[in-house]
């Protein structure tokens, strides 16, 4: 193995080592654990940048990716090989993962109140409540350090390991391993504050919901493996003959081709992981975890992984596509993606929790990417994946900073009934937390697609342009409306949080957070703006020549040649629509929410009437799933399968057999044993016969020793005779 390839293998290792070292050795020392954690992230970051730069400098990287593989699992006579690979797609994903992960790690140090005293009554498994300190004779309540500070860095290290593994995998199985490791970590981290019942519920919900998707994905992997005999990306996706066979072979399932079925099964995995409708329910609850975890899940790792996987598998999804006629997995993606984008955006309109709004916006933005893939806009999906990761990480970390600022106010007033996450308790934070405000504003504008400047504009615009250019008007319409709503609720959020006057005392006493937290925000906001410029369409008026649409040319060559498509022709219609919805939404949002004093007077509530309640309750999906799946299957398992089938039927039969046997035994005893055996055999044979024998034997028992000897000799000889002649 070359040294260069070895570096790729080593990229995921530091966070994994950090996990073990912290858990086993450094669990007691908070200082050591954050240093190890952040150090590991930094090492992986540096390595990733080296690899990224090398990838940029490699000619024809798409055809000849970097990497190598090893024998791993022996299957069917051969070995299943696992390996690492860096092609343009993984290089770009590696780039944003490494940066966001490092930023999240650094942010976590501040978020978990490094440097603050131990809390007065803090318990493991609950968020810190604050500590009382005496300064110049005055008692103050200040934030206290997280009681499980060290453990957090261990878990999040493992999380990062899972993501790096997934990105670098050169085959589906290794990707799946990274995928599952992240599933596990999301479980551990969402439930990090396991003392809160809501966190415990959320951790289970997240794990179980994604698990449903995972199982289908595993089936898709099994199907691919049994039909092709390999899971290597290169072997399946870059071999036109394999794809043609897969696309034409009948899978016997609902008329799908093998490629179609495998694509749909894999896509269900993404539906779970990237929280698409109808498996979206876990993601909003996942914010029960600490905020860096939310950023990790929503931006850097987990949900991006789902989209990354289908981008990676795109040649399979598109296998059998001819002349713009979409394949069934693509249709499914287009429909679900577009629907989810709009659906989640409507829910976000009516949420008051600052993180919840962002959570639904994540679902909605992921819908964009999925829809983009569905209509074949491969590059646009990858582009939006990257830009979204930057600005969503920024927004989540920003919201964490806001919440911390609010908690500061809560500690000051000691009124613990005030929810520091409710946007209606905020207002006017702009002057209190300027760094957080400006970075959050950048993130929000990027999310809304504020024209020309932000990254979100360029990536979103490319998706809309693709949809328009290829005539997918329904998708275009859904996404355009969703873009309008996105701009609207984002401005609502910014207005309610930062603008106007403080609505509560707590907001008045909010305080800017430390540089640990705001520095990562500033770094991320650079990317939330700058990263868009690498993908400006060449024909774009005036700005077109800036980067010659470098991104498109670079990423496009991750695809095999026959799928490579040029960027869509420039058209004014999608651009115009983008401009109108973004600016219109932002403007309207500001105008409507400028002077809203409380949640009761939310203008949307009046405008929408009962529909607002439905939105606020997320279309009652949680309730419906609880009834349909959880209660009903528990009931079935308990009442029917266990009590009736297992205990009544099977055990009942067994006990019946036992009872019949006993009964028969009784019959035998009473009607056969006692009258027949005892009477006849017992008294006659058992009594009389031995008596007779006894009488005869008495004659032998003479008491003369010689007679005994003769008898013994006879028996011995007889025995010998039998042994020698009969048993031979």
């Amino acid at each position: 193995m070359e040294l260069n390839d070895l570096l790729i293998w080593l990229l995921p290792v530091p966070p994994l080592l950090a996990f073990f070292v912290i858990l086993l050795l450094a669990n007691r020392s908070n200082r050591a654990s954050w240093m190890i954690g952040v150090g590991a992230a930094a090492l992986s970051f540096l390595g990733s940048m080296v690899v990224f730069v090398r990838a940029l400098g490699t000619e024809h990287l798409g055809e000849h990716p970097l990497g190598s593989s090893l024998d791993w699992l022996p299957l069917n006579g051969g070995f299943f090989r696992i390996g690492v690979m860096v092609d343009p797609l993984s290089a770009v994903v590696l780039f944003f993962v490494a940066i966001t992960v490092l930023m999240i790690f650094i942010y976590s140090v501040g978020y978990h109140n490094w440097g603050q005293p131990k809390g007065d009554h803090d318990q493991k498994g609950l968020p810190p409540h604050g500590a009382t300190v005496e300064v110049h004779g005055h008692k103050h309540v200040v934030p206290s350090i997280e009681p499980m500070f060290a453990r957090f860095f261990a878990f999040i290290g493992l999380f990062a390991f899972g993501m790096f593994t997934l990105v670098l995998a050169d085959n589906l199985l290794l990707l799946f391993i990274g995928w599952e490791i992240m599933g596990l970590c999301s479980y551990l981290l969402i439930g990090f504050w396991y003392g809160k019942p809501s966190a415990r519920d959320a951790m289970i919900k997240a794990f179980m919901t994604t698990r449903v998707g995972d199982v289908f994905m595993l089936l898709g992997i099994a199907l691919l493996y049994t039909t092709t005999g390999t899971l290597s990306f290169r072997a399946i996706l870059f071999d036109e003959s394999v794809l043609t066979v897969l696309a034409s072979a009948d899978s016997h399932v609902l008329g799908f081709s093998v490629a179609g079925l495998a694509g749909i099964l894999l896509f269900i995995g993404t539906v779970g992981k990237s929280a698409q409708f109808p498996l979206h329910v876990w993601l909003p609850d996942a914010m029960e975890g600490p905020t860096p975890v939310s950023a990790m899940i929503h931006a850097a790792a987990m949900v991006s992984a789902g989209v990354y996987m289908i981008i990676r598998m795109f040649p399979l999804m598109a296998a059998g596509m001819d002349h713009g006629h979409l394949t069934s997995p693509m249709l499914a993606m287009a429909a679900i993606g577009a629907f989810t984008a709009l659906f989640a955006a409507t829910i976000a309109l009516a949420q008051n929790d600052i993180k919840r709004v962002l959570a639904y916006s994540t679902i909605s933005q992921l819908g964009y990417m999925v829809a983009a893939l569905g209509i074949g806009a491969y590059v646009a999906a990858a582009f939006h994946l990257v830009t979204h990761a930057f600005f969503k990480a920024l927004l989540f970390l920003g919201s964490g900073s806001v919440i911390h600022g609010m908690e500061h106010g809560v500690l000051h007033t000691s009124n613990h009934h005030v929810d520091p996450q409710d946007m209606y308790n905020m207002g006017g934070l702009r002057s209190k937390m300027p760094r957080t405000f400006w970075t959050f504003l950048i993130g929000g504008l990027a999310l809304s697609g504020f024209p020309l400047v932000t990254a979100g504009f360029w990536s979103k615009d490319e998706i809309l342009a693709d949809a328009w250019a290829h005539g997918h008007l329904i998708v275009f319409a859904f996404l355009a409306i969703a873009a309008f709503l996105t701009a609207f609720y984002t401005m609502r959020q910014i207005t309610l949080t930062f603008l106007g006057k403080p609505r509560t005392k707590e907001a008045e006493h909010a305080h800017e957070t430390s540089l640990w937290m705001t520095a990562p925000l500033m770094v991320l906001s650079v990317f939330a703006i700058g990263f868009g410029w690498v993908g400006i369409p060449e024909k774009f008026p005036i700005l077109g020549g800036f980067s010659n649409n470098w991104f498109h040319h670079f990423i496009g060559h991750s695809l095999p040649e026959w799928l490579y498509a040029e960027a869509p022709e420039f058209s004014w219609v999608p651009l115009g629509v983008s401009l109108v919805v973004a600016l219109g939404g932002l403007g309207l949002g500001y105008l409507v929410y400028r002077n809203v004093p409380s949640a009761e007077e939310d203008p949307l509530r009046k405008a929408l009437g009962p529909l607002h309640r439905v939105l606020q309750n997320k279309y009652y999906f949680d309730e419906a799933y609880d009834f349909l799946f959880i209660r009903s299957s528990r009931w079935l398992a308990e009442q029917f399968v266990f009590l009736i089938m297992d205990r009544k039927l099977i055990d009942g039969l067994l006990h019946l057999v036992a009872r019949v046997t006993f009964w028969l035994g009784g019959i035998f005893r009473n009607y056969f044993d006692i009258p027949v055996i005892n009477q006849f055999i017992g008294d006659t044979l058992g009594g009389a016969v031995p008596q007779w024998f006894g009488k005869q034997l008495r004659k032998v028992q003479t008491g003369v020793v010689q007679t005994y000897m003769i008898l013994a000799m006879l028996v011995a000889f007889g025995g010998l005779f039998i042994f020698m002649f009969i048993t031979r």
Partner: protein
Amino acid sequence: MSIQDFPIISVIVFLPAAVGLLLMLVPKDRDKLAYNIALAAGLVTFLLSIVVYVSFDQPLAISVNERLASGELLPASEIYQFYDEFDWLPALGISFKVGVDGMSTPLVLLTGLVMFTGVIISQRIEERKREFFVFLFILASGVFGVFVSLDMFALFFFYEIAVFPMYLLIAIWGWKQTREYAAMKLTLYLVIGSVVALVGALAMFFAAGGTTFDMVTLERANFPRDFQILWFPFVFIGFAILGGIFPFHNWSPDGHVAAPTAVSMFHAGVLMKLGAFAALRIGIMLLPEGAKFHLPWMILLTLVNVVYGAYIAMVQTDFKYVIGFSSVSHMGLVVMGFATLNHDGMVGAGVQMVSHGVMTALFFAVVGMIYDQVHTRQLDELGGMVKYVPHVTLAFIVGGLVSMGMPGFSGFIAEFPIFMGVWGEKPFWNGPVFPEWLNFLNGDNNWIAIVAAVSIVITAAYIIRLIRKVFFGEFPKQFEGHMHDVNPSEKLALGLLVLVLVGIGIFPSVIVPMVETGVERVLILLGGM
């Protein structure tokens, strides 16, 4: 003298029983001494089984398989490694022949591991410790004997030796509430199973001329197809009862729950494997035509096992019953793997036997550690244990991840090939049985793989529920002061078990190629399918 000449297998088989007899000489009140002797014997047996595992000659096994495949009629002494024999009852054609192949070697190691850890976990037993170890060791001898016997009579002999002490172990040291019922239920089921299997075995013995019980000879007896089809279900189901096959699985959860911890570990960890293993050795290998005829439909029974066990486990309120039913579910996968009769399925089943054995031993050990301190297993009464037993919690979570087939752990290495094996197999019926709109179910067994795989979700549900209810949440006030961390030796035991689960998961080549050599031979007997 090379290691292959030393009668190491015979030593492994008889050492536990011999130590068991020796233990009877220990004065009754010297419990500590009895425990130390048992621990030493367990360690020695475990080390010997490691020696067997490490020195198993894989290239040799592969070349033997090649020679067998080319039609050579090799004697048992060349097919099996560490071969050893002496006559027992020559007049009846019974002899003591032992040896191991790629299928049984991992199981010998598994038994050694469970025995050693089981002894450690039993240190908390207070009542008649000495006698407990006597019976446990006799049981262990029986288990080892079944895995290495190459003579059908000897196999049955050891099988009964393994089953009989179970009755006493459960009835005397078991959970007071159900021990008599459970011990009786278990013994009756297993004895009936073995009698049914014995009938089939005797039929083979006589059909082959009534001169030998030697299994390699019987493999070559070329029983007529009708004969095989008639007797296969007797042998297979008879043994599979011990493997917990539906609908004869009910002895197992009740038995697991009533048994003391080490016995549960043995019982679910090793004893259930005896059933699946004997069903393979005597059922599939001696009656391959019968297997090909019957197993395609029997796979449905195993599917019921998988789903049904998981489903019931989900709603149990007793910690130990959850694990008990999960064993029913996982053993279903073992038998399902064998029932595919193809390479991947059987390799998966072979690995799953070890993986499940270690995992479930771990589970029961954990249950025992908690029950012994707080004296309840009701999930509603437990909680927050992570505070007192963090390492045990971690071990249990690892076991849970194995159980739900998480990649990177042994469960995945075992279950993935099983699903692969089931996938694409043709079903036993010809022509459509499902209605038109479900036509895609008619072509092959993919739907079985799908249903079995979906049950992984249910598995995840009950494992998560356990972790949440037992280890997290509020620690019940009434147990304050009752719960302490386990001692280092118990942690060592858990650590060993975890090591195996993770080791196989990350380096599957430590076991898979070995199992493959065993499977290869079965495939040759099946006619090179």
